[in-house]
């Protein structure tokens, strides 16, 4: 229990650091006002707009304001949407969340059998094939994979919808696209974990009891090699979110990814800041959960 509280306390400085960096960056970057006016607006019009938005105050004053507002969950008005930024972002969260969960599930479903198989068939053709494919899975840029999958499964075979969010079928291609890199990573990780575990003394003990190879691998090996995988998934959540950003654009998935990208293009500071915060908290939360889960599942780690 105290461990959880300690972990939670560690999150505070993390958020503070994030807020600081985000604010600094937004401030050294350019001016949103030019984007809000017509393409041929005059310089006087621009100046007037800046003043009305409070962008002419000193930076420190702006940061103070920023921080106190962030505490209240206010990231300011979106220049584009003309409303509080946070609700806009939170509105997109379920879509991204759905995509992430599906991607994680798919990558786990793919990687467990492949990783184990690859490890026990080590250095055979099967291993080479699995390792090769998983490296390929990592080597392909996300958007490229997405477009290819779309061409094959939606345009030529016409068995899956092209884009957008809706039924479970809509989820398949985006989830595969997002999850592939992680599946590849997990497969490789699981393989090496498994290889490690296969060398452990307790595997020899299990075999010395007369257990069959299969039970040794699955009953004694898999659970031990899966534990570090939890940590790996948590560590990869951040990369996964990064991949999801791109996938969302490819598949017109109405999540945070699309929002943040259009907000960056429009220099919608408030929305970008809110997105970064929400994503950061999302990732921190996922890591936190994984940490707890790990502690629950692994009897070696005492609750502290």
């Amino acid at each position, binding site marked *: 229990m*105290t*461990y959880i*509280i*300690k972990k939670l*306390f560690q999150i505070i400085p993390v958020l503070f650091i994030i807020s600081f960096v985000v604010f600094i960056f937004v401030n050294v970057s350019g001016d949103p006002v030019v984007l809000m006016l017509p393409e041929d607006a005059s310089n006087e019009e621009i100046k007037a707009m800046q003043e009305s938005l409070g962008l002419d105050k000193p930076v420190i004053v702006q940061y103070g304001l920023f921080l106190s507002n962030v505490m209240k969950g206010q990231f300011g008005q979106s220049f584009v949407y003309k409303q509080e930024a946070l609700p806009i972002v939170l509105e997109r969260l379920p879509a991204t969340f759905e995509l992430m969960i599906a991607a994680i599930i798919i990558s786990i479903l793919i990687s467990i059998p492949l990783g184990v198989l690859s490890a026990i068939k080590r250095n055979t053709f099967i291993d080479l094939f699995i390792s090769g494919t998983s490296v390929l899975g990592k080597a392909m840029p996300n958007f490229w994979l997405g477009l290819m999958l779309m061409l094959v499964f939606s345009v030529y075979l016409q068995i899956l919808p092209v884009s957008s969010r809706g039924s479970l079928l809509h989820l398949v291609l985006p989830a595969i696209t997002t999850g592939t890199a992680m599946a590849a990573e997990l497969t490789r990780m699981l393989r090496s974990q498994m290889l490690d575990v296969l060398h452990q003394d307790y595997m020899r003990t299990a075999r010395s009891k007369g257990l069959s190879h299969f039970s040794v691998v699955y009953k004694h090996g898999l659970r031990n090699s899966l534990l570090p995988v939890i940590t790996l998934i948590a560590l990869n959540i951040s990369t996964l979110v990064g991949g999801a950003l791109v996938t969302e654009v490819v598949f017109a998935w109405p999540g945070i990814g699309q929002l943040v990208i259009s907000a960056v293009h429009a220099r919608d500071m408030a929305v970008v800041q809110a997105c970064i915060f929400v994503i950061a908290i999302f990732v921190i939360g996922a890591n936190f959960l994984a940490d707890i889960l790990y502690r629950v599942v692994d009897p070696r780690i005492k609750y*502290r």
Partner: protein
Amino acid sequence: MPLNKDALLQVKGVKKYFDVSEGIFTTKKKYLKAVDNVNFSLKQGEILGIVGESGCGKSTLGNLIMQLENPTEGEIIFDGIELSKLSAKELRRKRKDIQMIFQDPYSSLNPRMKVFDIVAEPLRTHKLASGTDLKKQVYDMLEIVGLNNKYANRYPHEFSGGQRQRIGIARALTLKPKLIVCDEPVSALDVSIQAQILNLLLKLQKEFQLTLIFIAHGIPAVKYISNRIAVMYLGKIVEIADKEQLLSNPKHPYTESLLYSVPVSHPKLRSNHEQSKLTGEMPSPVDPPPGCRFHTRCPYADEKCMEETPDLIETQDKEHYVACHYPLYRERVSNSDSVQAILD
């Protein structure tokens, strides 16, 4: 126990408590008492063996003497100087006189450094030699520990465990220290190699008039090398005496049982003392038992032992100190004559 003022090393009431508190809000701190009020002194040229079960605080004591850990309480006076009072810079200079030999011949040598550099590092650090002089000193030292000069340009992994341990000894000796702390230097070695290293240490001790602290849990090895032996239990020294005294006439029940646990050296001596062997295991040093810490496993313990902590006091035998309310007074069958009698 009274400390000898002229001794090379005096350990005075030294304690080391590790903070193992849980959580951040709890007001009650939890301490692991690794070393709890240890006193002894060491004369120039003496070899003190320290024995005890795993986790009883032997290494921590060694680290405290080496100033690798700061004592929670107490003083370590070396050569008349209290080490913890030295500034970081002075301490670094003082380290020239106290060296250490480690247990694991694999992890104690930097795998990325050549043997020459490993042995030369202390000399370079203290700017004691350079150029050809450095070379000569390093080569001499390798010679002394029985390694060929041509090995100087190799990396540690090219050596066997025994050879590596020799490199470690050479490194400790280059500075001509006054005191060497050996933390289980032979535990990781094979029997035949172990004998080589023990003999080497003895030879060097005579040659350089070294003072040694020899930590081990292999009691026979300690017996072979030391003049005096200290027995530790749960962070405390329970008995300390001259080697022969301690082995033939152990006064602490723990010492006795420990000695009886050591496997016999001949099948004919088997199971003579089955009943005196220790049962149970050492309690956790986080919550050591009150009173005499050994009372949970002691066949002679009574109420007093549960309440009062015995001090380390001198017995009738001179220089034989024991921390027990009821010290034993009986000869242990251990001298060679009686053993020989059984064997014949």
